[in-house]
């Protein structure tokens, strides 16, 4: 299918009528995913949002339940959100949600996250101009990866090439009259654009046998070297689309209160600090090593995926230029543990 660019606004207007629509919005010098009420609030001229859209499903702070502390304690689960639609999400970020889905399902299902995911449609936009630090092709993805998406749009000039990935994606496209069948020329153009995008990615992680290589250098001094310049600011984790760690805190006002979930970071000493004062990961070295292992050893072992989609945010935004690509590639050259 295709849709002419001048019909996109009418399409957005239609989906806004029965969805809460999130789209990339210019915010000073960055782009963020925000709820839009009108199509002209969004911008589709962007590389990627500074903060990944995971926050729509795993908000930075959220109420898990409320309680009243008067004579009879009452517990109340917050109301569910309505149907949402993300327009313009990049394939890497859509893939990250699939990785998070594995975390929040399993034996214990996180109903808060999962109900938001279930009620959400993802319309992706092919990454035609990857950034300097993008490396999605190293971690089983690509600028036009459809994994996790319902619909994928690719900018082919004056129109978008439209791929329907799921039946609910198909439904939303069918309900709007502006979509037309694509011709051979459209398809060819799309393929050229995707190839050009792929070829423009110049940075790569060598991911072959990575989990077992990491296993063999756990005790190496290498991790101390890597950690030496780390400030422990946690920006790499807050901006990572696959990081999901959280803290739970009680907030009260008078007789009422709530248990709140807030994003946490494995880069902070308090994260593992026990009540006795003992901390199993006392140094930044322990914390950085845990982060790298979580992404390239533990998740591959437990869930058969990398905990990384190659978006490059942690590289671009690190205040001291710690570069995950270098960290991983140089780890391969390190002497194995005795």
């Amino acid at each position: 299918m295709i849709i002419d660019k001048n019909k996109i606004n009418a399409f957005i207007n239609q989906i806004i009528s029965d969805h809460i629509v999130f789209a990339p919005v210019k915010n000073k010098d960055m782009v963020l995913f925000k709820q839009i009420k009108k199509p002209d609030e969004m911008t589709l001229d962007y590389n990627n949002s500074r903060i990944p859209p995971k926050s729509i499903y795993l908000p930075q702070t959220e109420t898990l339940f409320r309680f009243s502390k008067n004579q009879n304690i009452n517990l109340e689960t917050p109301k569910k959100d309505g149907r949402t639609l993300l327009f313009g999400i990049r394939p890497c970020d859509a893939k990250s949600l699939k990785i998070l889905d594995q975390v929040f399902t399993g034996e214990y299902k996180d109903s808060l996250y999962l109900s938001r995911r279930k009620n959400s449609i993802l319309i992706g936009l092919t990454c035609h101009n990857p950034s300097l630090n993008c490396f999605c092709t190293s971690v089983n993805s690509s600028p036009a990866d459809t994994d996790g998406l319902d619909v994928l749009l690719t900018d082919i000039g004056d129109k978008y090439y439209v791929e329907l990935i799921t039946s609910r994606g198909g439904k939303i496209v069918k309900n709007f009259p502006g979509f037309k069948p694509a011709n051979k020329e459209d398809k060819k153009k799309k393929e050229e654009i995707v190839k050009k995008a792929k070829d423009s990615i110049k940075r790569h992680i060598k991911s072959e046998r990575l989990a077992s290589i990491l296993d063999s250098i756990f005790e190496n001094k290498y991790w101390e070297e890597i950690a030496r310049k780390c400030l422990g600011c946690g920006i790499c984790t807050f901006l990572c689309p696959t990081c999901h760690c959280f803290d739970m805190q009680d907030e009260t006002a008078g007789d009422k209160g709530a248990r709140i979930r807030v994003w946490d970071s494995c880069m902070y000493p308090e994260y593992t600090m026990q009540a006795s004062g003992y901390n199993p990961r006392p140094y930044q070295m322990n914390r950085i090593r845990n982060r790298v292992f979580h992404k390239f050893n533990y998740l591959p072992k437990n869930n058969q995926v990398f905990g990384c989609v190659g978006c490059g945010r942690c590289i671009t935004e690190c205040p001291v230029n710690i570069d995950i690509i270098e960290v991983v590639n140089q780890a391969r050259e390190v002497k194995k543990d005795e």
Partner: protein
Amino acid sequence: MNNPYKPWLAIIENITDEVGGERAIKTFILKFKDKNIQETFSFKPGQCIMVSLFGVGECMFAIASSPTEKEYVEVSVMRHGKVTSALHEAKIGDTLGVRGPYGNSFNVDDWIGKNMVFIGGGIGQAPLRSVIHYIMANRKKYDRIDVIYGARSSKDLCFKEELFELEKRNDINVHLSIDKEEHGWGHFVGFVPDNLLEISPSPENTIAVTCGPPIMIKFVIENLLKLGFSPDQIFTTLEMRMKCGIGKCGRCNIDNVYVCKDGPVFSYEQLKSIKGER
């Protein structure tokens, strides 16, 4: 789909002062407010629950009672941080939250027909108490039972009365110890790992389960190996800071294992292959 973070309400039915002073320990008998939950709540020895004080926070504790005691669940808590301090201030009749049970358990079914040696120190006796109660309730299924337990001083012994009572029975052998000599103490004086060597249980058809301070566990395992126990005959429990209890919040991992859901019980055989800080 239920909200997995929302606990059930429970009432504190009774509180026992186990140990006083700076490292005070109290045992709480908890009963679910909803009769149905109390009747259907089932767990295995070694499993844990998240206990909530609304407005303060939540903590994971090993269940100290046995699944055969169906009217309540018990936790023994040392006062240490924010939640445990608030819990120590709680009174009989207070309402709190409980969710769980979480984690794996001691494989009591695999151990049928075997000799059991329990080696505990301080508050580490809590999860052992659950399995000891369970085994005593199913006494015929198991062979010889030894309980080796010690604390810093006689005042620091947890479940004191109960252990003295067990000591009088002839179907279980209780070996108590304190670290330093005290007037009138008629039992072993010295550290728990030394008492273990003194008793020297035979590894033949025997399972050893140890819980206590990390340093104690380290030397207990060393001594068990010296006595001829193989790594798959030795079981212990691990602890990490926890928030969610269900493998989502991230912090309790050691290697690729989440202690909250994959633990807390591990054989020494398993521990040997788990790398990482603990």
